[in-house]
């Protein structure tokens, strides 16, 4: 290994390192801080070269250098020190606190400020905060890390998208996802095709290799985002990547292996067989009947008959006990479908540089298999970041990242090929795996296929056997993405900087979904090809000024241009009816439908900002940006964003022993959102005859004929941008020498002139039109605190807490528009409704009296309301993240607890498994004959006392409580509070002690054991309630056969050379 390392090192050295040869000697020494303590990790570089080293844990170093040269000592928070090399071989240094004693806050456009001067809430997430999350998706790594930031992952599928919101939702029609900015350049975090069915597709932030991230800063409020204008109406996540720094090359290698398994799953019964009431008698009805119910006789009353010609079971038909061969029927556990997913990740980086040229190179490789067989996600990334000082005044830098990502996705949701749909509906008397389970069953065709090629499933191929779907319905995606940036920074004077940046973010996403012959979704087979090409170009020219007007009065200003061009091309081909089984190519399909969509827009912005500070105590700033957007009507396409803010450091004149630092801040801002593309005109579309939610449209061209029809959406040439206005107040307080810190923020924002595609009565010839209407308000509290109860030389304990509570209310919508559907089904959906919380759950419900009692009919059952209504609020009352970190000598332990109080989720899955009789609930309750539904009699108004049987075979299957009202029951019955407490992350790290490393080539190293979702406590009866059927869309709180979430255990080794 060691020799390998040397080869590698030599290679890197040859690339970037200039070696000196004359009169070299070894200098040693100790570096201490201002209090005399040894300072480990101080960078020591020979001036004018790239050679360097770091001090060890005891503050000692050793370096080979030439006489007459100069050593530069640098360490964050301390001023650089320079020492000439004379005759002595020992150079000891005491570092002095430097200007950068206080941490730096990165604000909009990458401007660095001191925390005390910032007039709005900014929260920093460090590389350490996200390094042991065990998450592949960067967005998930932010979960519970920051106040005001909520993250909900779509599911536990590998590569699944995640929904991230900062301070809730503001917009109805547009994305509410924040802007992701990497090193000053916005990147694409879009998602596509996360509908109620299909596979879980990724959000594109998944392409970011978290190992490349140095830190993240989260801009939450309007005032913080003003300089980003229209593009940042929903907050900004500023990502700063790791950079090269002057010094000897540091090679870091890390390797992680992680094992995942399903976490919570709904309880299924194994007591009752497939079947239903036939002529009033509970009867076994096997797979050959094609029937779906598990309302049959007790499995214990059945046995096999040993028939060898029966295709659905190797033991033969199920017959009543006594009529077969005596082999008792079995209740099968379908959850043995899930196995252990394995994640394997390797990263290598090398960083270093001379004084004038700095470099950072990294490569990462991640492979992840899921808990479902055949599920896989891969990511490979390569990144180079270079910067060079061409002169004292001119620095250029460039970075390039190339990423490939993608994998094989599994079917989920409302989809007869969905894994959970087929798995949870399957009757317990049928063995999905035919004696096998997990990956083995998925790789053995006899488990899911009959000898004649037909499907072996519990109801004869009406739903796919989960093993069939993972084997026969592959859905793959392959993303190739390039992100490039070029910047130049020129400082004509020490108080002025000109910075220009040009960047490019391009990707292709090639997807293919195959449905093999005899699949439930399409027995003739199908191929769906989808190619997405996306290109974003950003250009920016900034003038930055920084000069003090007087000794006490500081002045900063900024002015510039920001341009954005984006275009996406999306092409699809749907081919139906395969001839060769399993050959998923369009040439193998009998008919095809194609589509081509283009989305494009341009945005130009001029921006400016002024910041003033007085005596490091009072701060004032104002920012202004004007945007021109191509999506707005040509004659009126300018939009202004602005903000003002002030801050006051009260401890400058109120200093006392308890409160060592205190700051009050307030700000106000206005920003907005432009129109959706192409919304100003009414178009004609290629005709598609629909009007039937159960079958596919007849999509032209068909019949060898071209046809077009007018779009159902009426264009609006008078559309205006959405406007969001927000004020926030906050305070930051540090007590007891900063051992206790509290930062609290209250914000209140209102979005008006929402650009909404409103439903309009179809009888007007259009079903929707784009209008400006509606008001959404959003107010909330964000509290961040930290406490350091113990700090000794060897031991420290930190507690970090973030707490968020907000109200997100739709105050009004357009005239004659009562609701707008964000996502979901006709029966249950997430909507915006005037007077209700954003995303309110809407669906079927029971009739109620004026007092709110459920009305009960004469037969003793609750009466469904023929009119749907609001049935749940998906917004939690509050959320909290609590991190406890302990460190003792070389060990550190960190645990992140995630608490969510309130927030409704519709368990559509629950209603359906009750309907089919596969849920444990229906096994427990089907025998009840004296149930009294709470409520009042619909005619008399008296409390209901009528006893009913919940499932009386004499009245037929359609009389059963879980069957009678609707497929999946009444939505209201399946709304659950999703409150949870979970141990989101826990990690134990061991840093290799210096003594151990002294005689090796290693400079540092660590071994970390970590776990995710180690426990979850919730009353929600379905899967882990942190789930969302439609992924990163605006609709929330829907669970309909979503893929289950996972818990995982990981081991990571990191070594630095």
């Amino acid at each position: 290994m060691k020799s390998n390392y040397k080869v590698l090192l030599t290679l890197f050295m040859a690339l970037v390192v200039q070696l000196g040869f004359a009169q070299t000697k070894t200098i040693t020494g100790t570096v201490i801080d201002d209090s005399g303590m040894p300072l480990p990790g101080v960078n020591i570089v020979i001036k004018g070269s790239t050679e360097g080293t770091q001090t060890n844990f005891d503050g000692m170093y050793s370096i080979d250098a030439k006489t007459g040269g100069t050593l530069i000592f640098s360490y964050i928070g301390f001023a650089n020190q320079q020492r000439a090399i004379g005759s002595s071989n020992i150079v000891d240094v005491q570092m002095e606190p430097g200007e950068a004693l206080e941490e730096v806050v990165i604000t909009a456009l990458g401007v660095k400020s001191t925390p005390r001067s910032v007039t709005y809430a900014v929260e920093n997430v460090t590389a350490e905060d996200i390094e042991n999350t065990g998450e592949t998706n960067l967005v998930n790594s932010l979960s519970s890390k920051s106040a005001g930031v909520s993250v909900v992952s779509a599911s536990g599928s590998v590569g699944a998208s995640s929904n991230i919101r900062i301070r809730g939702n503001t917009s109805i029609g547009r994305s509410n996802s924040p802007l992701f900015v990497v090193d000053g350049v916005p990147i694409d975090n879009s998602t596509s095709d996360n509908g109620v069915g299909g596979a879980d597709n990724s959000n594109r932030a998944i392409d970011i290799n978290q190992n490349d991230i140095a830190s993240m800063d989260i801009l939450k409020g309007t005032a913080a985002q003003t300089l980003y204008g229209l593009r940042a109406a929903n907050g900004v996540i500023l990502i700063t990547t790791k950079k090269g720094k002057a010094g000897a090359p540091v090679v870091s290698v890390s390797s992680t292996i992680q094992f995942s398994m399903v976490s919570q799953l709904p309880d299924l019964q194994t007591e009752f067989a497939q079947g239903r009431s036939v002529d009033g008698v509970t009867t076994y009805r096997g797979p050959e009947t094609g029937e779906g119910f598990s309302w049959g006789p007790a499995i214990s009353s059945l046995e096999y008959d040993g028939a060898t010609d029966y295709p659905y079971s190797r033991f033969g038909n199920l017959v009543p006990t006594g009529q077969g061969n005596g082999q008792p029927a079995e209740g099968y556990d379908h959850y043995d479908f899930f196995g252990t997913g394995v994640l394997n990740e390797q990263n290598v980086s090398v960083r270093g540089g001379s004084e004038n040229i700095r470099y950072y190179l990294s490569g990462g490789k991640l492979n992840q298999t899921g808990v479902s067989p055949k599920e896989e996600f891969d990511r490979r990334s390569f990144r180079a970041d270079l910067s060079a000082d061409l002169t004292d005044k001119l620095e250029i830098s460039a970075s390039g990242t190339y990423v490939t990502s993608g994998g094989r996705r599994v079917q989920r949701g409302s989809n007869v090929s969905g894994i959970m749909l087929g798995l949870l509906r399957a009757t317990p008397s049928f063995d999905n795996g035919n004696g096998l389970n997990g990956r083995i069953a998925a790789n053995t065709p006899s488990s899911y296929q009959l000898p004649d090629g037909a499907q072996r499933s519990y109801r004869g191929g009406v739903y796919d056997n989960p093993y069939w779907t993972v084997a026969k319905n592959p859905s793959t995606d392959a993303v190739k993405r390039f992100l490039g940036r070029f910047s130049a920074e020129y400082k004509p004077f020490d108080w002025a900087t000109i910075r220009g940046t040009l960047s490019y973010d391009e990707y292709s996403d090639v997807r293919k979904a195959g449905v093999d012959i005899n699949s439930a979704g399409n027995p003739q087979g199908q191929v769906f090809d989808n190619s997405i090409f996306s290109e974003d170009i950003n250009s920016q020219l900034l003038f930055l000024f920084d000069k003090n007007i007087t000794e006490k009065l500081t002045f900063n200003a900024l002015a510039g241009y920001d341009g954005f061009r984006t275009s996406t091309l999306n092409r699809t081909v749907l081919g139906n009816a395969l001839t060769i089984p399993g050959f998923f190519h369009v040439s193998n399909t009998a008919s095809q439908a194609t589509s081509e969509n283009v989305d494009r827009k341009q945005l130009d912005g001029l921006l400016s900002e002024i910041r003033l500070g007085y005596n490091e105590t009072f701060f004032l700033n104002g920012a202004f940006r004007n945007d021109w957007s191509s999506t707005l009507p040509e004659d009126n396409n300018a939009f202004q964003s602005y903000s003002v803010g002030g801050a006051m450091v009260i401890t400058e004149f109120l200093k006392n022993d308890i409160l060592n630092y205190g700051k009050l801040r307030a700000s106000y801002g206005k920003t907005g959102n432009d129109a959706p593309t192409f919304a100003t005109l009414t178009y004609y579309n290629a005709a598609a005859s629909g009007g039937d939610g159960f079958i596919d449209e007849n999509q032209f061209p068909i019949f060898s004929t071209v046809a077009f029809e007018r779009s159902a959406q009426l264009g609006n040439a008078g559309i205006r941008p959405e406007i969001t206005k927000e004020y926030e107040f906050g305070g930051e307080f540090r007590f007891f020498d900063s051992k206790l810190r509290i930062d609290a923020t209250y914000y209140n924002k209102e979005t008006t002139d929402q650009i909404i595609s409103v439903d309009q009565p179809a009888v007007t010839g259009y079903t929707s039109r784009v209008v400006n209407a509606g008001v959404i308000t959003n107010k909330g509290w964000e509290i961040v605190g930290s406490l350091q109860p113990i700090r000794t030389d060897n031991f420290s304990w930190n507690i970090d807490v973030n707490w968020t509570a907000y109200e997100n209310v739709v105050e009004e919508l357009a005239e004659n528009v009562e609701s707008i559907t964000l996502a979901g089904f006709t029966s249950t959906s997430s909507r915006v409704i005037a007077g209700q919380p954003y995303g309110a759950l809407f669906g079927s419900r029971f009739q109620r009296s004026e007092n709110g009692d459920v009305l009960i009919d004469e037969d003793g059952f609750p009466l469904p309301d023929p009119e749907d209504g609001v049935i749940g609020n998906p917004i939690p009352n509050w959320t909290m993240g609590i991190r406890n970190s302990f460190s003792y000598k070389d060990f550190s332990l960190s645990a992140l607890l995630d608490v969510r109080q309130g927030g409704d989720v519709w368990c559509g899955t629950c209603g359906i498994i009750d309907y089919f009789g596969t849920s444990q609930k229906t096994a427990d309750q089907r025998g009840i004959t004296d149930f009294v539904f709470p409520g009042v009699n619909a005619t008399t108004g008296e409390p209901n006392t009528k006893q009913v049987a919940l499932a009386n075979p004499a009245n037929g299957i359609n009389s059963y409580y879980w069957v009678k009202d609707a497929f999946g029951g009444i939505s209201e019955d399946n709304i659950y509070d999703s409150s949870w407490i979970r141990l989101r992350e826990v990690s134990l790290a061991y840093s290799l002690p210096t003594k151990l490393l002294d005689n090796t080539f290693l400079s540092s190293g660590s071994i970390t054991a970590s776990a995710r979702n180690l426990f979850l406590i919730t009353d929600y009866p379905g899967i882990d309630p942190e789930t969302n059927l439609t992924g990163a869309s605006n609709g929330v709180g829907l669970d309909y056969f979503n893929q289950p979430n996972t818990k995982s255990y990981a081991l990571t080794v990191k070594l630095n050379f």
Partner: protein
Amino acid sequence: MKYIESIKYVLILILAVSLSTSCTYDDVNQDPTRPGGDAVPLVAIVPAMQTQTHRNIEAVLGRYSGIITQQWQGFDAQQLQYTSYVIGENDTDNPWNFGLYTGSMRDAADIIERATNTDAPYTRGIAEIYMAINLGIATNMWGNVPYSEAFLGEENLTPKYDDQEELYGVIQQLLNMAITDLSGEDPAEIQGSLVDGSPADWIKSAHALKARFYLQQTSVSANAAQLALDEIALAVSSNIEQQDFFFENTQNGGHPLALFGLQRPNTMIIGDYFVDIMNDDPRKDLYMAPIDGGNFAYFENDNANLFWSQLDSPSPVISYAEVKFIEAEALQRTGGNALQTLKEAVRANMEYLGIANPAIEKYLITIITANIETIITEKYKAMYGQSSLQTWNDYRRTGFPTIIADPNGSNGNDPSGIIPRRLLYPITERLSNPNAYQNAIDAQGGHLLDDEIWVFPSK
């Protein structure tokens, strides 16, 4: 302080430029993948109107009608729920919105307007016929529906619901205009039609449709039968003159019944009542196939015998058989002897389906009377697959065939549990056109499944 001054000027300049100008983006905001209305010719809209109309006849509304009249029954999931009359305001959204008003009726209105502007009377005539068919479907399903104030876009965002009685007048008027338009000259000929037929053929279909809509009014108009008879004289007079729309043998262009069978397998099967009355009928094997468990499937993936559930099955504009059934009933109602006409109707249907003559003869011998019950029951068998909508209309009008309501049929949408008399207005109307919606419900005394519509009173 000079730099401060200069910065000030830069900032003021930005502000001034910002507020005074707007940027030009040429065609960036025009979708290159979709044409504007000016570029689209009539020939490209007519196929959309026709395909959507025949889909309306055969797809979800057809399935509701067939399930309600027990030609089919649910076997799983939502279709099971529909079988016990759980058909609510959500279940009518799709056909109302995208099938009819922002579907085929929008296309028809668009064509009528364009054909008027470009002086294309034949094509306008076709659109008028299709508008009449669709308006007929809408009012059959829902009673009062918008028409006079519909299709105006932003000009009228809350169209009122017209009385059903007026709508029956509008339908006849549309068909009269179609006949006039198709009787004149049009050098451009019929543009874009996917259904074969000369203007003369379309005129015959228009008369046949007039007869259908007259006959629908037998419960509310004393001379309905006579008016229907008058139209029959000018209507489609043979299977050859019958105009059929053909879906194609691809999933993309397939017939809705076959698509439903393929894409929603085993969720709907043949109704028990229908199985029973089709015993000893030579059409049985063309309608259904036995499956395990004693039931009959209406669709099987590789069963080419099933006439109405092939991907390329036809959908008649109006069938010759239906014309003869209308004639038989009208004759019976006006005091004539309908037996021969009834037999001709059954023969027309069987010949159309390809039944051999001996089997037809054998069956016709069993028809010995022609009263309303035998006529409608025979029509019920003949209309299977081609238009269950008409079967439900006939049931509501005459009470035949004598089917029995589902025993679990009582629910919030159908409190009395009777065989449904109409559909609920869709939820989008309640939410986006609330006043007109409420007025329509008030005017008709309700809109639940057991509330009657004007044209089909139960007594």
